[in-house]
């Protein structure tokens, strides 16, 4: 059980920051896709800039993870179609229900039971992808 506590704490921090930044709000996602506020761009932008910096420092200092190997990000397979098509499909859903997978779970905690319908549908979407994936261009 002990080895899971750190992940639980990271999760709590994640839930808190996404609520406090309002990134879990459908309204903020609408506003972002309308280019009417810098807020969401500021969050994603500073997250990426900080992320690049942290990973660069880790590389320079040869930081090891707790399992003893060098800290590194798993590489995505190269490709184009799956990323642009899959990404567009996700974007359509993200804008429609205003929640990407992280916020979906977090919104349960904020007391919105109807988000469970979105999660159930997302599970169905994932399942259907698993069934038809070999027929799709990747």
């Amino acid at each position: 059980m002990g080895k899971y506590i750190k992940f639980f704490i990271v999760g709590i921090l994640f839930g808190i920051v996404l609520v406090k930044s309002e990134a879990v709000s459908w309204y903020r996602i609408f506003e972002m896709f309308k280019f009417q506020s810098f807020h969401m761009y500021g969050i994603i932008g500073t997250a990426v800039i900080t992320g690049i910096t942290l990973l660069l420092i880790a590389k320079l200092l040869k930081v090891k993870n707790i399992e003893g190997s060098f800290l590194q990000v798993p590489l995505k397979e190269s490709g184009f179609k799956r990323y642009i098509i899959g990404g567009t499909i996700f974007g359509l859903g993200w804008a429609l229900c205003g929640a990407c997978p992280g916020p979906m779970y977090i919104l349960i905690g904020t007391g919105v039971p109807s988000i469970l319908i979105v999660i159930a549908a997302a599970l169905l979407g994932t399942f259907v992808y698993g069934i038809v994936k070999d027929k799709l261009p990747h």
Partner: protein
Amino acid sequence: MEYILQPWPWYVSGPIIAIIMYLLLYFGRTFGMSSNLRTLCAIGGAGKHSDFFKFDWKSQRWNLVVVLGAILGGFIAHYYLSEPAAIDLSDATIIDLKTLGFTDIGNSLLPPELFSWEAVFSIKGILILIVGGFLVGFGTRYAGGCTSGHAITGLSSLQLPSLIAVIGFFLGGLIMIHLIFPILF
């Protein structure tokens, strides 16, 4: 405490999200929320229908623990670390949403037009939630990641596939908001 109760500005929130990503890498894992959907399918027995769900899901339990923490974090932030206040949306957004027929704009995290019981029990309302959720589940797995896996982790590690995926996210989002919303609402 006053600063915690207020909404957090983007320049505080963004770096904390990056630290979360870094911590998970430091723990020998990686930041990715949509893969939990695949894990949950596998636990539910989807491996009987597709090899895509035949993997050692027990190795992904840590990520489900992150999800449990996130739910609790959402609860704590919403009920104990927030004062009831409207979301400080831009005036242009409020006007646009009014034009689409929305009311009480920004008074809660989610619009009652989509997430209230009244909306859920209407054909249009339930279809929006189901179609939206389905597209998120299908699209994230097709693209191999969502906002956390591609936009945060992938872009932070300067990976081209993630940049293509993020361009796709925006393509889809812009089509939905600018072309489909005016028909839908």
